[in-house]
């Protein structure tokens, strides 16, 4: 059994110095091994959003020149419109016996000569006269039922405010017909903005050259006893993880009038934050589930995610999920299989082994629809151990069955396809402000890794301290959120 000698201490003083090292027990005389035991595992698998954007090079990054940016999008052509006003009472019989009836639509989208289908999906009419704007009542269209039955009429409730009608193909007489018009849809704009993150690493005294009795792994695969290397690794991991979480969870903070209420007390300048991946997706498609996930619920999600997709089966959706959700996804499918009598078949896959040793465990990590589109499960560690998860654990917001934080039972379905050769998910950075590093050089020696940055990055102070300053601009852009979905477990 591994005996833990120390779980590590936390130091929150501004500067790291020799005293800090003593406090962190890095000068302890006895040791079991010079190798570092990482109690909480490696950190490299915790940055999926960073890897699929910044990690893809230019194709995963979009450069902008302003804090606010927009994406040109074009939605699905729509032929529906809502009723704005109903002039008929419950006992009226609009359109009875082929008489004209009035339909008041919100906009002038409907066109003369075109057909209409009512809210019941059965009532069919033709628009006989172009829309006429009536103040406070929208646009009035004169229509006639297509039914040949002399006693048919429109149910007046179908003309109630809020009911939706849809326009169908125009029909005209054989000769002497007049022309009509077709609607066109212009591109829309999705607005978002980037944020700026700032991190500093302060050191004092001769910390740059302090050696410890523990060997730390280096990026190149070797080891080092220089403490500053480990401290800088932690600094880098911390900021990457924080930025990763930020890009998932941040929320757009600019008011409709363009103002940003969060301002720096010292400078009075606005502090902007953009809509992260969660907000962008939740504002498109969102649902919740309870004690356990069912296959019916998964199918509801999937039908939304793959709604309107082409038949080529090339759509690739990643389901980024916490461990709780991954378990629920597997259970939902297995429960359905069991109830459908596939117990033996599933057992064959779940139990394997040879030589008298058995192995149990096989898990569903992918779902394929009838067109061949796939949803693949991708673990998202921050939902299990991120800031929100930690807060939920400490405050008892845990799932009663799995005892995991509620965030662990969340999933976000991201469309990872490419559109016109462009990645659907991109990191957005400001040109020239992508990632700025500088050394605040004081009397304290700077580590070799800092010095490698060159003299241009050196700035000065008289105090026996130096610091490594980092500023980054960051935001996340999802070009097409229509095929994305957020699914949360609700207590």
């Amino acid at each position, binding site marked *: 059994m591994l005996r833990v000698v120390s779980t590590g201490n936390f130091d929150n003083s501004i500067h790291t110095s020799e005293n800090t090292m003593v406090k962190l027990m890095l000068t302890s005389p006895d040791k079991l091994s010079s190798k570092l035991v990482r109690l909480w595992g490696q950190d490299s698998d915790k940055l999926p959003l960073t890897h699929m954007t910044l990690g893809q090079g230019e194709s995963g990054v979009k450069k902008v020149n302003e804090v606010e940016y927009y994406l040109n999008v074009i*939605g699905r052509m729509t032929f529906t419109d809502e009723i704005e006003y109903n002039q008929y009472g419950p006992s009226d019989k609009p359109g009875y016996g082929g008489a004209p009836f009035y339909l008041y639509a919100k906009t002038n989208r409907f066109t003369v000569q075109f057909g209409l289908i009512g809210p019941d999906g059965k009532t069919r009419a033709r628009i006989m006269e172009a829309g006429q704007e009536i103040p406070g009542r929208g646009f009035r269209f004169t229509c006639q039922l297509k039914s040949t039955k002399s006693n048919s009429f429109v149910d007046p409730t179908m003309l109630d405010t809020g009911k939706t009608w849809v326009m169908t193909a125009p029909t005209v007489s054989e000769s002497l017909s007049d022309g009509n018009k077709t609607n066109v849809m212009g591109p*829309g704009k999705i607005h978002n903005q980037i944020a700026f993150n700032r991190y500093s690493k302060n050191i004092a005294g001769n910390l740059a050259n302090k050696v410890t009795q523990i060997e730390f792994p280096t990026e190149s695969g070797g080891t080092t006893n220089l403490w500053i290397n480990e401290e800088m690794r932690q600094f880098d991991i911390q900021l990457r993880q924080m930025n990763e979480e930020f890009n998932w969870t941040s929320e757009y903070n600019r*008011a409709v009038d363009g103002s940003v209420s969060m301002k720096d007390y010292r400078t009075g300048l606005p502090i902007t934050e953009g809509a992260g991946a969660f907000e962008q997706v*939740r504002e498109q498609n969102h649902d919740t589930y309870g004690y356990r996930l069912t296959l019916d*619920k998964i199918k*509801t999600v999937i039908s939304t995610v793959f709604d309107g997709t082409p038949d080529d089966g090339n759509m690739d959706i990643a389901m980024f999920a916490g461990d709780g959700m991954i378990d629920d996804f597997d259970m939902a499918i297995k429960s359905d299989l069991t109830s459908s009598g596939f117990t033996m078949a599933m057992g064959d896959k779940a139990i394997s082994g040879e030589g008298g040793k058995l192995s149990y465990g096989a898990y569903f990590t992918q779902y394929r629809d009838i067109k061949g589109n796939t949803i693949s499960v991708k673990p998202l560690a921050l939902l299990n151990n991120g800031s929100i998860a930690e807060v939920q654990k400490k405050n008892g917001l845990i799932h009663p069955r799995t005892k995991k934080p509620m965030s662990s039972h969340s999933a976000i379905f991201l469309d990872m396809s490419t559109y016109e050769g462009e990645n659907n998910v991109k990191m957005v950075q400001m040109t020239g402000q992508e990632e700025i590093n500088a050394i605040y050089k004081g009397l304290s020696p700077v580590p070799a890794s800092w010095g490698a940055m060159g003299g241009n990055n050196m700035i000065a102070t008289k105090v026996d301290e130096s610091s490594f300053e980092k500023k980054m601009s960051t935001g996340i852009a999802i070009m097409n959120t229509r095929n994305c979905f957020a699914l949360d477990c609700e207590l």
Partner: protein
Amino acid sequence: MITISKQVRIVRKDKASEYKIKNFKVLGDSGDKKIGGSIKAENAMLVNSAELKSYLPNIIGVSVTDPEWGRKVDNHIRSISAPVEPTGLELEIGFNFDVTDMEFRPAINELIKEFKLDDNEADVFKFVVASVNRNNWWKYGKPINPADYFLWRYCQNYRPVANNVKDADKSDRIRFYIVDTDDVRKEQSEMFAVRQEANKLYFAISDDEYKVKAALFIAKEGAAVLSAKTNEDLLISLDQYVQSNATSFIKIAKNIDKLKDTAFVEECIARGIFTKIAHSNLITDSSTGDNIGGNVQEVVNYLNNPSNVKYTNTVKGIIKSKSI
């Protein structure tokens, strides 16, 4: 058979994020619009197995004697996903009562025995409607629309749905609220009575310029007093306040004689002699910055304290000079 129809409407709370508002033209009617699963709501429904047996077979198409009943009920409840459109989701939660329906006869008999009712349809169901909680009507009749009734019952325990508009802002997690048309009518009637009383009180004080000004100061509409050029301006400002804050105005008008000191402190705040610290009730002297009270009542007490008479007279002098 007696049919007692009743509709409720589940509507979306006006809670769009800044991002949604900014992008409404493109995003439109998307996002957080579904009544979905919830551990609490699911459990609340599943413990009522007798209730579920009474009307769920009509919804899921499985008999209670079917070996699959338990699993299918569980699956149905845990798969709820009901979109609430911008116009709301109207639910029929009424019932059909039939005294001859043998399914309900044992419960009806118990009711008749316990409450000594006459065994006729009209009396029995008049009693049910008047005395039995709607959540238990399933014992005596069939929902007109079982699916709607089931969803309404589910929403009573689904946290994102508030049971009425008053509770809608209690939490950011609330995304919908239930509008009961009967309640709306009752509320409109109550509001009408309140507005009538407020209007009577308005006319009662409108001839007294001091009272009009005092009411406006107490209502924290001091700016309207300071900018008024004529008595008519004051009356218009007070009328506007009455129309939108009838209940508050009634309290002020009924107690206007007792609130003279409060009106004085509010006038001092309006004229900048005192300063109310933002986002708190703390009040300070504007010229010295000294704290003179944690709220208006404390300032009233401070000014009425005989040991502060010199300070009080100074303030009154300033007010008098400004009022001229």
